[in-house]
Structure formats: structure tokens, C-alpha cells
């Protein structure tokens, strides 16, 4: 029997999808700005491994000689980015949703198990609520990163009026480097995020738009064989307690 399982609250869905195009515009306009002094590269023993960014990349995206335009876009959309972030943060704190999001003391150990599971090295992933341990870490990190982008952005934008922020960020140069590195971080996050969403499938993706997942509720009788199986191997009860719920993720969620 199918049941509707509520997953993502409305505020989370809106802020998520509002943030997506805004962040895209911030990254794009940020590149228009960065082009004017594209000083960053990764060097190993004096050999330039990666230059941010090569000419073909700039030309492909029509980046060159658009500094003024980039600044105009960046300094408008920074408001939306910040306000959307503040709204999300307030909602998550006040609603108590943060409990589902913020890593707990098990998360770092479990995240490793999740990773091994996702890489098909480990058979079972640890039991989870809304987010698994790896998701908790990743999604909390992305919020912290967003906060960092606003802070380092302000530190570069008003280094005299907000001199104390610039100081906290380790100075003008360091603030600019962090601001840039965080952006690279978003792009990497985005790639893994999209891949994971594709792998997780439709039910999961839908929940970020319509808020719910559809789960197959198992009649009690169907669970019996599974229980029996465990009883046959009493040694593994503790270790594989999650196995009983394993056939349907819905049960895992409800067990905990």
C-alpha cells in the first residue's frame, strides 16, 4: 500500500530553488569580475598545473572585458542571495529543522560508511532519518559556505568601512582567495549533488518540488520472513539490525 511520506517543508523547497538561479548568476557575474585580475593558479614546483582560467574557457563563456557589467549584476543579486540565505537560516533554526540537518556526533563516522556504500564497497548504509550522515555534512557545509561567501564578499566590497570584517577574513588578499575558493567549491558541490540526485531517482527528486515521497507500506506479515532470518543468525542481530528494515527505506526511517 502506498503512503505519502512528508519530506521537505515548503520554505526549504522555495529557498532551494530560488537560490539555484541566484547562485548561478552570482558565479557568472563573479567570473566577469575575476577576469579583470585573474591572478589565481595552482602551481606545483613552479609548473602551472591549473590557471584560473584558460583563455578558451573565458572565450567560450564570453567573459572577457565585462567588468563593469559583472559588478552591476553582482551587486544587485548579492542582496537576493543574502536575503534568501537569511530567510532559510531563520526558518531552519526556528522550525527545528536544523536537527535533521546539522551533523551529530555519529555523523563523521557514518559519513565514511555512506561513502563506502555509495561507492559499492560496503553493502549496507547506516540507518538514517531525512538525511544520511554524508548529506548532513555536505548540506551543512554548503550553508556555512554561503555564509562565508557573504562575509568574504563584504570584506572585499567594503574593506575600509567594514575593516573589522576584512581583518577577520585574514586581510584583503585572503578574503578574495576564500571568496574565489568557495565559488570553486559550489561548482564541485553542484556536480556531485546533481549526480547523486540522478542516482537517487525520481521519488527523491520529486520531494524537493512537491515535498513528499511515496512509500510502499509493507503489511506486517511480509516482515515475518525477514525477522525469522535474523533469528536464525542471532550473532548478527546487533550488527545488522538495520537489515530488518533494509528492504524498504521507509521502515528504516520509521524505526529510529
Amino acid at each position, binding site marked *: *500500500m*502506498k*503512503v*505519502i511520506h512528508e519530506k521537505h517543508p515548503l520554505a526549504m523547497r522555495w529557498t532551494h*530553488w530560488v537560490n539555484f*538561479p541566484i547562485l548561478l*548568476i552570482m558565479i557568472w557575474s563573479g567570473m566577469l*569580475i*575575476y577576469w*579583470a*585580475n585573474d*591572478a589565481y593558479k595552482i602551481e606545483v614546483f613552479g609548473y602551472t598545473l591549473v590557471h584560473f582560467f584558460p583563455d578558451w574557457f573565458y572565450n567560450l563563456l564570453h567573459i572577457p572585458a565585462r*567588468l*563593469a*557589467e559583472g*559588478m*552591476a*549584476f553582482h*551587486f*544587485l543579486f548579492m*542582496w537576493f542571495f543574502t536575503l534568501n540565505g537569511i530567510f532559510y537560516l531563520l526558518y531552519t533554526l526556528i522550525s527545528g529543522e536544523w536537527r535533521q540537518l546539522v551533523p551529530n556526533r555519529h555523523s563523521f563516522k557514518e559519513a565514511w560508511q555512506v561513502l563506502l556504500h555509495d561507492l559499492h564497497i560496503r553493502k549496507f548504509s547506516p540507518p538514517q532519518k531525512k538525511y544520511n550522515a554524508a548529506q548532513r555534512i555536505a548540506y551543512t557545509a554548503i550553508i556555512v559556505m554561503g555564509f562565508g561567501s557573504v562575509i568574504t564578499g563584504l570584506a572585499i566590497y*567594503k*574593506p*575600509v*568601512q*567594514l*575593516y573589522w570584517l576584512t581583518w577577520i577574513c585574514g586581510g*584583503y*588578499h585572503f578574503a*578574495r582567495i576564500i571568496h574565489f575558493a568557495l565559488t570553486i567549491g559550489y561548482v564541485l558541490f553542484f556536480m556531485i549533488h546533481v549526480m547523486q540526485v540522478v542516482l537517487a531517482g525520481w521519488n527523491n527528486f*520529486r520531494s524537493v*518540488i*512537491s*515535498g*513528499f515521497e*511515496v512509500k510502499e507500506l509493507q503489511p506486517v506479515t511480509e516482515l515475518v520472513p525477514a525477522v525469522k532470518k535474523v533469528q536464525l543468525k542471532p550473532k548478527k542481530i546487533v550488527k545488522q539490525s538495520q537489515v530488518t528494515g533494509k528492504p524498504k527505506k521507509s521502515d528504516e526511517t520509521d524505526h529510529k
Partner: protein
Amino acid sequence: MKPTTNKPQPAELSIEKKIKRRNFISFTTFFIAGGAAFGGWKWLYNSPEEKTGITGGARQPLRRALNKTELFFRRIFSNDHVVKTYPKERAARVVRVNSDIGLTDENFDASRWQLSLVKKKGEVLKINIEELRALPKTEIIYDFKCVEGWDQIQHWAGLRFIDFIAHYQLHDQAKMGYVGMETPDGGYYIGLDMESALHPQTLLAYEMNDKPITEEHGAPLRLIIPVKYGIKNLKRIGMINFSDQRPRDYWAEQGYDYYSGL
């Protein structure tokens, strides 16, 4: 309302129907909102460029946003917020030259240079460099910041703009909203909001690294204003005037923020 006892009561929606309904509502909203956002972006991206007046070169809505943002950040401006200064040893020996706009007049003769101080319409005071050098000198070693993103610790010295105002008794002019400055050939020009101009670290500089400023850096007199990006640090000042309207500004005409404050 009529009683509807004869009609069959609508049954509880089946789970399938509920799922369908909620999917429909949320995905319709998603695509409508997404379409609207895309349309909004198209509108903004293709919005007409402003007519070039005091400012130019930006999309109209983006210029409005820049001006609004200026108003917000002017609230946190304070004379107590000073740019960080460094010891002399940190100052660059080779000071970066980024532009020669307004410095290309071949007939310019620095030895015959005079500053035109427009006190009001028709009342122009000519000031030579010796007069300015005779006034109290202030040094600053700070991180000069370019709008392009680079910065350099530089050592400048000259007359503070507030001391200049006080010496030439420009108190009435200082109550106006803006200061305008231009190169002698009028090739480069800037406008400053008065509070930034009157910031205690704003200098009319005539020395760099303890020597008279070189030609390429704006001899004999240039503006050093640490609360602004480099684009406002006019070289080879020929004229200074005061106004309640924004004076013309070279880079603001080309899509840059008029305020450009740090």
C-alpha cells in the same frame, strides 16, 4: 445552501489521487515560477542601456540598483573608519601605472601648471604647487585598491583635502553634495560625494616614495582617496569645483558605479 443529502458524499481522496493532485499543484507552480524567473532574467538582461548623462553604459535597472545600493552603504560610512596603514618598508618601490587617460596632452608643461579652484561660478582661484607644498604635509602608506581587483601598498604624501578646505576657507562649498575634479585637458574627470572627499585620509598628493610625483603618476598634483577605488584617484588635477549635483565622472559614464566606495 440546500442540503445535499441526496448526493453521495465525496469519498476521501484515494492515495493515488492525492499524490496526483499534489504533484500537479507543485509541478505546475514549479514550472510557472521557473518560467517567470526565466522571463524576469530575460527582461533584465535585455533591458535598455541608460541614456548617457552623468552615468552611462549600464542597463537601466542595474544602474538604479547601483544607486540604491550606494544609499544603503553610505549609511555605514564614517570618518572613524580609516584605511589600514603600513610601515614605510612595505611600500612598493615600483608603483604600478595602470592608465594615462587625461595625461596625453603633449603641450602640457608641469612647470607652468596651476590649479584652478572654482569657488563659485565665475570666481576661480589659481593656486601653484609651492603654495600647496607650504601647507601641512600628511603622509600615508596604504593598500591602493583597483576596481580590477589588484592592490598595492603605496606611499604618498601631500595636503589633506580637509586642510585644503580649511586653508582656502571653502566651508560653504564643503556644505554642498559633491566635489568635481578634472585633468587640465578635460580628458579624465571624477565626481566625489562630499563626505568621502572630506575623509581625513583624502590627500591632494604631490609626493610618492618621498620624491615629487612622476609624470606618469600624475605630477604635479594628484588625488589620493583611500575610501575609493583607483578609478576615482585622479592624476594631474587641473580643476576642482563644487556642486550639489553629481559632477561628470569618466568611469561612471562607462557602466561603473558612481560611488565606487570602499
